């Protein structure tokens, strides 16, 4: 189940989209999301869908892979569709007992569902084509101008990096602790909901303690390596805009500008 989620996963293919500056991609996704919420007709959504499919093709990511990523969200998408179909007043198509499906509701529901799907595909395209670290660098760089008003750009980026670094370590640890407690007869799988959440205590307590210990150690190690915040720090990898970045931004902006005007 956990490994089915594609949001946040990186799928390197070396395509043009992969090579774009992370800032370009972040801005593009931002514009994309904005457009999704501002545009309210199916025609425009059709164009957006074509655009998204083109992007997936250019990025050389198998469509199957993207659809697989949507699977865990099936429930939420269906839920949106159903709720909207029932809740919105209008011309009744079918009645099931006290519940009425209206034409307006169905229209609105489908619309919301499509919007949700687009949203998920668009954002996963960003993470699929950008390694977590470059993404972090991009966010830091974009947030830099806001430092003056107190946005801790460097600290946020550092936190993200460390989180990314420790996720696999903590996952491995979770597995180990779980097995150890199972060897002592712990049961994580059966019983009522309350019993099951109680049974997580022997897993979560050691996990938290270990996470704190690691945090302590890491802070010490970082200090020993002269870490003192973002001030005066240089970077091995610097972000650079190329011609293709300006081109990409231009394409996205003009495309969506047209959609607004439609």
């Amino acid at each position, binding site marked *: 189940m956990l490994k089915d989620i594609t949001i946040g996963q990186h799928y390197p293919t070396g395509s043009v989209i992969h090579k774009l500056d992370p800032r370009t991609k972040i801005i593009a996704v931002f514009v994309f999301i904005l457009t999704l919420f501002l545009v309210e007709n199916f025609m425009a959504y059709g164009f957006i869908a074509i655009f998204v499919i083109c992007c997936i093709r250019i990025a050389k990511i198998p469509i199957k892979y993207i659809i697989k990523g949507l699977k865990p969200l099936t429930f939420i998408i269906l839920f949106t569709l159903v709720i909207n179909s029932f809740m919105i007043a209008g011309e009744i198509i079918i009645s099931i007992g006290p519940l009425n499906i209206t034409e307006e509701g169905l229209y609105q529901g489908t619309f919301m569902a499509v919007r949700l799907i687009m949203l998920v595909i668009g954002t996963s395209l960003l993470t699929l084509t950008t390694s977590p670290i470059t993404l972090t660098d991009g966010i830091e760089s974009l947030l830099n101008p806001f430092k003056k008003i107190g946005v801790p750009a460097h600290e946020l980026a550092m936190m993200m990096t460390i989180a990314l670094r420790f996720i696999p370590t903590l996952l491995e640890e979770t597995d180990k602790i779980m097995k150890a407690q199972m060897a002592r007869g712990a*049961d994580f799988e059966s019983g009522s909901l309350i019993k099951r959440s109680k049974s997580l205590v022997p897993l979560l307590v050691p996990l938290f303690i270990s996470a704190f210990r690691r945090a302590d150690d890491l802070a010490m190690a970082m200090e020993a390596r002269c870490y003192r915040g973002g001030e005066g720090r240089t970077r091995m990898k610097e972000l650079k805009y190329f011609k293709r970045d300006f081109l990409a931004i231009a394409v996205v902006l003009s495309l969506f500008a047209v959609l607004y005007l439609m």
Partner: protein
Amino acid sequence: MKNLTHIYNEGSPHQTNALEDINIEIMSGEFIGLIGHTGSGKSTLIQHINGLLKPDKGKIIVDGMDITSKNVKLADIRKKVGLVFQYPEHQLFEETVYKDIAFGPKNLGLNSDEIDDRVKEAMNLVKLPFEILKERSPFELSGGQQRRVAIAGVLAMKPDILILDEPTAGLDPRGRDEIFEQIRLLHQKYKNTIILVSHSMEDIAKLTDRIIVMHEGKVLLTGETKAVFRESERLEAIGLGVPQITKLMGILADKNIPFARDILTVEDAKIEILKWLRGKKNA
């Protein structure tokens, strides 16, 4: 002697540390040393014996019970096989030492008197003073003490087979010697089966009756401790060694000094050398 553990034709679900066609028989009351370097399949193997992992193929029979069959209850396996993981103190979670050690017995469904007895006995076995420590938080204790609390937590389940995965990793020599001494006494007193995984050939040599050598998911060698350490060349070929003293006597034997190749302790080496020197004097 009855067959205690029987594993054959086993394949593991993980490809990276797969086990291949393993057949082992362990007798009741044996003290087994399991060696092999990281990734050789040791950890996978011990998790199979405890029922944490299921083999793709093959059977594991513990004390007449096939633990690979579907209708076997996990609790029944846990009663028979206790497993102490590496750095077991990282699994402590209760507010008091008492409660933490009682976790295993409680899961076995024992009544509170029985649990009480078992906690006392287990703490006694690892030399932790019951009255002083029972209400203390395990997290206030020293590293060595924490480890002993964790081991007591498994001992309290009174397993017939005790598996220890590098129980002294990260401890200093004093802490290591204390733990091994307690394991040795435990084995003497209860005659239970012990499987010890360790990287220290010196410790394996000191403690075990029989050794199983794992390499690339297979059993490479198995036999009495002395016999296995006689095969120093084969062990070294796969990156394992023999105790320093065994190596020394082996090299000397190569130089035609009539020493046995299976000397495991300094004391035995001393006796052997003195014997040789006296024999020469008389000649």
